[in-house]
């Protein structure tokens, strides 16, 4: 087992590239797990209500963990998942467990890092938030400045039990030439509430995310994603939300901006039970003539008492709005930034202030590279 003694503290360099995606020192977190390439680089928790450890250790410690692995995703879902399921090496990933009824005061943080150029990463994460527990999770990815290319495949399975409350923030910052595939499955128990903020703004070559969530009786899910594609970036997002239990509710808002890259967003809402309610909002903004946004919201009502709706829009930055702001003396660049930031709604995102400024900086950097 990995012990803290065998695990050197994080270097300043590591802290520096993790801070913009939400990393904070142990004193301000209830638990920390950092994966670098194919190993668990750092894991720590002093909170007795939180268990955080390498997945391999959890499999040895608790026999029930094996049932959670591939509990929400089938090993033959597709080539990637199959490859992961058939790997003979020990699984690499984190296991997070928040104990029943715990009200965890400090956020819990988990990060994936590709630390070497052309690094390969296969990750399987398991998260369990037990009955009635409340926790805030911060997760993300980062790479040192010297690393541009690499390949990451991750599978995440999250079990949010009855009555639990989970707020999460995910910020991903990969390298410009990276190829990223992520599969997330979430099961939300009766009366549980999850709200997640996702920030995908940094340059990346190809990022395909595929997420499915299942909501139990009276469960509530609120998602808010901001997505930015600089020139050269290709993002494909597929998501499915199943309102399985009576009275389940889901609201999902996605704001997408392209400065030359391509974004595909296919979001599907499935009403499986009575008195379910779901809303999808998918809005796209084009900053230049280059690049494209494909927004495909889909609604599938399997129950007559399921109320589902969506709104979608894709358009260029309005000339009228630009003229209005510029008539106050703002330069064209300032006016455009203000409109884009407003559109991405960074304010409404529950971002810690230091993260908000790093998100702005990421957009800034990505834009100047692509325009």
């Amino acid at each position: 087992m990995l012990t803290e003694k065998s695990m050197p503290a994080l270097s300043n360099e590591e802290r520096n590239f993790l801070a913009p995606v939400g990393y904070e020192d142990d004193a301000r977190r209830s638990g920390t797990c950092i994966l670098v390439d194919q190993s668990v680089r750092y894991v720590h928790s002093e909170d007795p209500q939180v268990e955080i450890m390498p997945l391999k250790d959890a499999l040895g410690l608790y026999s029930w963990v094996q049932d959670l692995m591939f509990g929400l995703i089938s090993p033959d879902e597709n080539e990637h998942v199959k490859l992961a399921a058939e790997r003979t090496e020990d699984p690499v990933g984190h296991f997070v467990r928040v104990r029943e009824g715990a009200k965890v005061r400090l956020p819990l943080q988990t990060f994936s890092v590709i630390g070497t150029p052309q690094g390969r990463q296969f990750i399987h994460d398991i998260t369990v938030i037990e009955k009635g527990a409340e926790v805030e999770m911060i997760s993300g990815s980062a790479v040192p400045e010297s690393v541009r290319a690499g390949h990451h495949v991750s599978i995440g399975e999250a079990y949010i039990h009855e009555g639990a409350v989970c707020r999460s923030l995910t910020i991903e910052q990969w390298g410009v030439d990276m190829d990223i595939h992520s599969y997330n499955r979430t099961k939300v128990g009766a009366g549980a509430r999850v709200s997640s903020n996702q920030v995908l703004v940094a340059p990346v070559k190809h990022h395909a995310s595929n997420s499915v969530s299942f909501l139990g009786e009276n469960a509530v899910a609120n998602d808010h994603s901001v997505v930015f594609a600089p020139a050269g970036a290709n993002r494909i997002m597929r998501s499915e939300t199943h309102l399985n239990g009576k009275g389940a509710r889901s609201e999902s808002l996605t704001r997408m901006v392209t400065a030359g890259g391509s974004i595909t967003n296919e979001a599907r809402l499935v009403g499986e039970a009575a008195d379910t309610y779901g809303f999808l909002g998918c809005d796209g903004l084009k900053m230049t003539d280059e690049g494209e946004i494909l927004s495909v919201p889909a609604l599938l009502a399997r129950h007559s008492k399921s109320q589902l709706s969506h709104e979608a829009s894709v358009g260029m930055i309005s000339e009228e709005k630009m003229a209005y702001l510029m008539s106050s003396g703002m330069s064209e660049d300032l006016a455009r930034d203000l409109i884009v930031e407003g559109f991405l709604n960074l304010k409404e995102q529950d971002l810690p202030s230091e993260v908000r400024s790093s998100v702005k900086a990421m957009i800034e950097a990505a834009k100047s590279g692509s325009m």
Partner: protein
Amino acid sequence: MAEQILGIRGLDVAAKGVPILRAVDLEIGAGEVHVLFGPNGSGKSTLLSAIMGLPPYVVSAGEIRLGGERIDGLAIDERARRGIGMAFQRPPAIDGVTVEDFSQTLGSADILHREAASLDLADFAARHINVGFSGGEVKRWEVFKLFLQDPRLLLFDEPESGVDLEHISAVGDAINRLMRTPNRAGEARSALIITHTGFILDYIEADVGHVMIDGHIVRSGEPRALFESIQKHGYKTMQP
């Protein structure tokens, strides 16, 4: 006449190939307030937009000068930085951009907190610009916006229309206050105010009035006398 701030000569303006203004001449001196009357659709907003440089209006003949300098070829923000500010008749709503963001970007957050109460906008810092504002709130914000900038030439497009009686004097006072205080460079301000109703004349001291009909300024003179004549006889007698 005082030093000339705005000088428009022989101005023709078109939008999307359709001519709207023709042969407009207008001069405004430092410290002067001019009002512009005219029926709906006569081209009043087009004139203000052309001075500000807003799309889709294109100057097809003539010239616009600010403080002697030709500005009709300049970008909108360059005109604004040279001292032109405009309170829009129908401004766009800017989703996600708060009044506070706007002020900070202009470097005038201090003014926001000092002056907002005078136009009953004290609670507006976190509101998104013009999103869900009532007709009157839009007008008050548009006037207030000029405090956040530092214009030398103020353009108001129907600042009183849609404003309830309770606030109309606040709008009038705000315009007066802007006019009384010189800009940061110590220059006296000038204003061109479009009024459809003429109400604004009860609150401000206007120096010169103009009547625009069919894209042309057909008469100029003492503003109250002009307005009374319009009220009595309508615009018909003023046809060129």
